[in-house]
């Protein structure tokens, strides 16, 4: 049977009452866990795992697929309404989503997020279906040499996209890299910059950094200015607002396509996931825009770009998962655990021996990507009641929710303290014009960049340049990096002339 036939069969199986019930239940759980900051899809799957024991394997897959397809959109709702992302990948959505809400356009932002999530998710899964026959070769062609070049490409893309003082951007990136190198060195096992604390052995955890930089710092800066913390949010949401949001996605289709391609590609790289995908997509949209200055003030493109990438990455991250049983994210790691508990061993034979599982999951994710957006929009009228909160309540509420989210993710108060320290750094960065985005992305890609370079040096016998030049896929990536740098220089020269 071909992939399309198998998918059609899997879609047919979904018409079963119980299949739909488990899928719907998964979507509701996914939306809820996505929308409550700090919970997210991984927690939802862990909590559902014991319940799946009573289900047949395929029913467990429908339930898990429903959750996995719905959390991203769920997470965008508090990102837009409260400036606190439900899940880490929704951080980029706060940058323009929340300013839109403060202008009374929350409905439009949620409508755009729903449509971009659904379409981005469909794009990612469609791409997955197309490349599935070549998944094995594709995954095997990306070794440490290419991972390093891809990381450099990501950093180059970001620096090319950022406006403002080049030196301050560089310093921000350098600070992010320095923070990334804290903890145990995976290559040698040596501890670096741990200050004798066991807490820092695994490095500075991601969530406190993201929360401190993107959630706490802006709220505290606003609070310190003495002005009202935020404008009064508009509680009314007309159907026309949502419709405008949805149609804006179709009007800005190049942004949607670019975001979906970036999401799918970054999703396929184990370890990076949705957070980097959505930030890179956001910055690429800003770079391509003729009016980059409106980003951050409440443009709908700033919602479409990260949300499409965030959901498209699900399709990409399933490539290494389905081809070799390598989880592309924490969520897929738990999903693989559920499969093993049901007697299905993920590995190189899964695509051949467990086609029912593979296509059942793809069908469930497809329905969930679209279904969750529709359900989310139906409930959004009630969700928007949160926008009726008095403005003065927002700052303490946001601070409390953000810190609670950090705590429940690890049950470690030191993470809460770390978020507060990082928030102070974030405030200083905002006041003195340093790039928070460059800092965070450098922090996230730092470890993989370092490890893959050192692995390449070891594998190549100390001559990485020759090694790169002998691999066509590496040469292609080097050309892309050079092209990005050339565009950056050309833009700078043009700006200088103007």
């Amino acid at each position, binding site marked *: 049977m071909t992939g399309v036939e198998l998918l059609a069969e899997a879609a047919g199986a979904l018409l079963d009452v119980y299949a739909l019930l488990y899928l719907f239940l998964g979507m509701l759980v996914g939306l809820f866990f996505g929308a409550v900051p700090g919970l997210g899809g991984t927690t939802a799957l862990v909590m559902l795992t014991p319940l799946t024991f009573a289900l047949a394997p395929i029913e467990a897959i429908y339930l898990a697929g429903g959750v996995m397809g719905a959390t991203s959109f769920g997470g965008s709702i508090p990102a837009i309404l409260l400036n606190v992302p439900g899940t880490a990948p929704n951080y980029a959505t706060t940058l323009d989503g929340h300013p839109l809400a403060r202008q009374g356009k929350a409905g439009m932002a949620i409508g755009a997020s729903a449509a971009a999530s659904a379409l981005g998710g469909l794009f990612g899964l469609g791409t997955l279906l197309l490349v599935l026959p070549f998944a094995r070769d594709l995954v095997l062609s990306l070794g440490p040499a290419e991972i390093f070049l891809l990381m450099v490409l990501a950093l180059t893309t970001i620096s090319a996209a950022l406006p403002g003082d080049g030196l301050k951007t560089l310093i921000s990136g350098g600070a992010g890299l320095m923070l990334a190198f804290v903890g145990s060195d995976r290559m040698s096992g040596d501890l670096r910059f741990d200050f004798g604390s066991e807490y820092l052995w695994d490095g500075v955890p991601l969530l406190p950094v993201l929360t401190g930089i993107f959630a706490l710092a802006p709220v505290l800066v606003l609070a310190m200015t003495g002005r009202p913390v935020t404008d009064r949010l508009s509680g009314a949401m007309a159907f026309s607002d949502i419709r405008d949001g949805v149609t804006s996605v179709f009007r800005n289709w190049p942004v949607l396509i670019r975001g979906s391609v970036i999401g799918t590609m970054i999703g396929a790289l184990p370890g990076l996931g949705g957070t980097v995908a959505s930030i890179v997509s956001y910055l690429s949209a800003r770079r391509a825009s003729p009016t980059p200055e409106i980003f951050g003030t409440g443009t709908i493109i700033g919602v479409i770009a990260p949300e499409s990438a965030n959901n498209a990455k699900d399709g990409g991250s399933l490539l290494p998962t389905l081809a070799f049983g*390598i989880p592309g994210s924490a969520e897929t790691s738990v999903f693989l655990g559920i499969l093993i508990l049901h*007697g299905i061993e993920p590995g190189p034979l899964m695509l051949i021996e467990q086609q029912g599982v593979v296509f059942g999951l793809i069908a469930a994710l497809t329905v969930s990507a679209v279904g969750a957006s529709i359900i989310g929009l139906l409930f959004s009228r009630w969700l928007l009641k949160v926008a009726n909160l008095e403005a003065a309540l927002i700052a303490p509420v946001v601070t409390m929710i953000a810190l609670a989210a950090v705590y429940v993710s690890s049950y470690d108060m030191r993470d809460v303290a770390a978020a507060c320290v990082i928030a102070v750094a974030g405030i200083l960065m905002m006041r003195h014009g340093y790039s928070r985005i460059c800092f965070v992305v450098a922090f996230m890609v730092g470890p993989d960049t370092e490890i893959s370079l050192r692995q390449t040096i070891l594998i190549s016998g100390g001559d990485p340049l020759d090694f790169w030049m002998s691999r066509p896929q590496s040469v292609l990536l080097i050309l892309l990096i050079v092209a990005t740098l050339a565009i950056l220089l050309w833009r700078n020269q043009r700006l200088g002339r103007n």
Partner: protein
Amino acid sequence: MRKLFVSLTQLMFAVILAPATAMADWPERPITFIVPYGPGGGFDIYVRKIAPEMEQILGVEVVVQNLPGAGSQRGATAVYKSEPDGYTIGIWNLPGIALATSTGDSRGFDLLDVTWLAELSTSTMALGVAADSEINSLSDLCNGSSEPRLATTGATSTSAVATRVALGLANCPHVAVHGYDGSNDAILGVMRGDVAGIITPADTLAKFVRSGDIRLVLTLEDMASIQGVQSSGEFGVPGLQNLSIRRVIGGPPGMPAEIANRLSDAIVQSASSPAVKAWSAETGRPLSPAGRDQATSTVLGSLAFLKETGETSGSE
């Protein structure tokens, strides 16, 4: 006076009987089962598979709690420092945890004091190479034109130490390429040709052997257990079965023997249940449940071997 005597006698009986009553009532509330790694991994899966069976036997909820961090030391410390009342137990990775403790001073626990309850499984380590590799034996690997490269996840991982110890004892100079993101990613490194081979659990390699991507050339054990694959004992390097990964369950020091025995029985019974056995057969995950004596002996054997090979100073 008589009243005082009666009161004192009552107090004495109360003191003597109190623990016995507490033990008789045990368990009366949920038991926390700590996994020192994130959800979805090998150790987590074993615990989640036996937890429902334990609930049926003990009649209380068994709550699985993931406490990852610091090379499994965060979870291990949480178990070690909990009350020895039988309501907190954890799964331990040997020899991984013994190695992890040797990397820093703030270990916060002594493996010799842990109340060892049961052993769940043993995964024998094996050397795997790409299916189309020209390496057919350990001699081929060691006597090539250049020093062979082997993939591992990190310098302090069990796989890295097994590589270092096994190839060190076989007088085989090599280069370890650390930093792969998990065993499967390291195996991909072998398939891609980044490295010549990998030493990792044979059951992890099994699915790649079955798909025709990886070939086993050596198992780290005295007697060969896989047909057609030489063992390290046959090669002339004995004792390497001590590098096998053991999934051992233990609780905090000082746990009353009666509670420890009941927990041990419940764990062994759960791991021996038809459902868990069928799951083990389906997925190829090894299972060899054993009680307290075997678990303690495994820990002592593992520590002694590592001390002998200079990998750790032991748990003093």
